[in-house]
């Protein structure tokens, strides 16, 4: 699929707001296994009455979407396409808990309503009055990528349209306890920035966040970057061949990439997958990581892309993200490669505007 997505505005809420603002190389340090996103001043963009009714997924999405639209200078969009791995987790938990505590009687329906996975996309539609195409993908760690692929298709079909595309996930309360039981988390020595050196420790540092992009099929003076390729796969047997094939499909080779952003999260059971390509096909390239500062969640790639936009716009890779000492020259093309727990691999190819 070759339809280029032009990004005109970005809004992101993460556990590293300063880094995403591009203002500093400093990142916040955390010594905890669950790192909440830092709440912005939601009231600046969401009326207080409305805000009170929104759970964290909904408010993060609406705020990020409004920032993206403001940056892009658009008042309205034609479609809203989103991804979320787990949806509105806290309201889901709240409703289950209420059912158990009250023996399924006299339940408040609000948490049930707001547990629905498409509530972030629906909230944005309701808030901005967008009656167009509205879609939500829920495919674990490739939910955001699915939203991007749909956006590419949509922009092929509707070349004059503007689309809000984004993804987000929230931390729950009970669910992270389940993750701990399932062995997903690094409960022994969790820290951010997460050390990525071998031998490392098993488990992830879990976080949350939301990032939205106001995009279209046409370049404008507001364009900050573009997405030229997206690919996903549940399992990959030969990673180098898979990545090589993707680059060929997009008419480029390894040498045409100026930076690769790898989804290292410090979980030594799966980081070897990144190390194999980092020391293999990407060994001569500048490399960066992003999940060691943003934490892990299904749609973290959306915030990784927001970071990539910063890097492309400012032509600078913050030191805290760098994995090797290669000094990038002109930053034109960035490839993001992500997977989670060895499954749901994705490639996202991004470029500077005008290149």
């Amino acid at each position, binding site marked *: 699929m070759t339809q280029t997505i032009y990004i005109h505005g970005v809004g992101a809420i993460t556990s590293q707001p300063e880094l995403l603002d591009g203002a500093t190389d400093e990142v916040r340090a955390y010594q905890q296994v669950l790192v909440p996103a830092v709440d912005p001043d939601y009231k600046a963009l969401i009326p207080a009455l409305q805000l009170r009714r929104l759970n964290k997924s909904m408010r993060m999405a609406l705020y990020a979407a409004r920032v993206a639209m403001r940056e892009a200078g658009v008042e309205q969009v034609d479609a809203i396409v989103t991804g979320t791995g*787990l949806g509105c987790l806290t309201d889901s938990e709240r409703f289950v808990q209420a059912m158990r505590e009250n023996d399924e009687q006299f*339940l408040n329906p609000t948490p049930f*309503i707001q547990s629905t996975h*498409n509530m972030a996309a629906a909230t944005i539609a309701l808030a901005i009055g967008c009656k167009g195409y509205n879609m939500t993908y*829920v495919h674990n760690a490739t939910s955001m990528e*699915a939203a991007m692929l*749909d956006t590419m298709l949509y922009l092929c079909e509707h070349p004059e349209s503007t689309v809000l595309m984004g993804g987000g996930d929230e931390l729950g309360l009970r669910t992270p306890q389940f993750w701990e039981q399932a062995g997903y988390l690094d409960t022994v020595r969790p820290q951010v920035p997460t050390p990525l050196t071998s031998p490392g420790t098993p488990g992830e540092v879990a976080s949350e966040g939301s990032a939205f992009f106001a995009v279209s099929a046409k370049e404008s003076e507001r364009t900050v970057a573009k997405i030229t390729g997206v690919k996903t796969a549940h399992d990959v047997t030969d990673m180098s061949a898979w990545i090589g094939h993707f680059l060929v499909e997009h008419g480029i080779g390894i040498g045409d990439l100026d930076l690769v952003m790898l989804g290292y999260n410090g979980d030594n059971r799966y980081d070897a997958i990144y190390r194999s390509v980092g020391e293999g096909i990407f060994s001569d390239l500048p490399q960066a990581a992003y999940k060691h500062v943003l934490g892990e969640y299904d749609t973290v790639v959306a915030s990784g892309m927001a970071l990539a936009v910063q890097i492309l716009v400012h032509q600078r890779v913050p030191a805290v993200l760098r994995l090797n000492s290669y000094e990038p020259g002109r930053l034109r093309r960035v490839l993001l490669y992500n997977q989670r727990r060895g499954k749901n691999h994705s490639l996202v190819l991004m470029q500077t505007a005008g290149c």
Partner: protein
Amino acid sequence: MTQAPQAVVSGMGVVSAIGLTVAENLDALRHARSGIRPLALIPSVHKGKLLVGEIPLSNVELYGALGIPEDEAYTRTALLALLAMQEAMAEVDLGDGRRTGLISATTVGGMDATERYYDDYLESPAHRHFIPTHPCGHFTEQIAQRYGIRNYVTTISTACSSAANAIMLGARMIRAGLLDRAIVGGADSLSQFTINGFNSLMIYSDTYCAPFDEHRKGLNLGEAAAFLVLESEATAHELERTPLAYVSGYGNANDAFHQTASSDDGEGALLAMQSALKVAGLPPSAIDYVNAHGTATPNNDLSEGKALVELFGGNEAVPLFSSTKAFTGHTLAAAGAIEAVYSILALSEQAVLPNLNFNTPIAELGITPQTEWKATQVRHVLSNSLGFGGNCSSLVFSKNP
């Protein structure tokens, strides 16, 4: 886009409260046999009281029917999906070199396991292998792995329009030349979570649901799964398929009115139907039958009915229509998929399906659903799916390209 090659429906499979195969579902539809009964299988205080469209097989029986080892973790949604997949995939050879994708849909996902083991997970290791099954995408991954579907695999969750949107994405990807074949559909099992959710919203009927009736009192939930095999016209031709139908149109729009309720005038539904007809290149008058969403909630049927009257240009102009929810219950994410199967049956049988439990037309609308099986010419069927968050989808299935 209207000139692009259409997606052909080459196969389908369905499990619902009215049958475990397409043939069983057809037989029940033809003989007006509803699957709505008092809740029997889900552990709940509502057991024996609330009316549901439950599939009369326990999880243990489903494991057995599918040959799944008992120590593996499959939620009920996954089990129902796999049963429907067996039938849908009967004629598909995934080793034939075609680019095959899987686009599934659910709202419940693994919630039935999560609600059951909510405290247990923390106390005992016995069921912790079910923890990874909670996310909606998990059962899609299980299907993809069991069948070896390695091209594009994803999951959609847009409330009650989820599976309609999965069918739409498959048709769009085939039209765009991204896939040769798309396995599309959805599944939702009953759960305490959804039963209590709709009950708490005060839209759960205390009797058999009566779509489009003036005195309707709300919905009955159901559980189901259905998948369609969509193929490009070229692929279907090369494989010498007999097309069951064509996905000739699709549209999605948002009501942008309220979190759960549809707008009074059904604007979202109207926009979705209009864009589906536009993609199909058909005027409203070409539609012979509308398989309505028709949940039998006071709000849905009035809103959808108004949209139908508006689309067709007056209550007299509304073609034959019915809701099949009184057979199956409202099966949430699966509804768009099972009703796609029923719409295709209307084309293959050249008949309109009955709307059960109807007595009195909604005064404000003056439209009457088809209440009996009726043999008639059916060339194009419009199928609606409307959901929470204002998500409205409409599909057009056609007998001929």
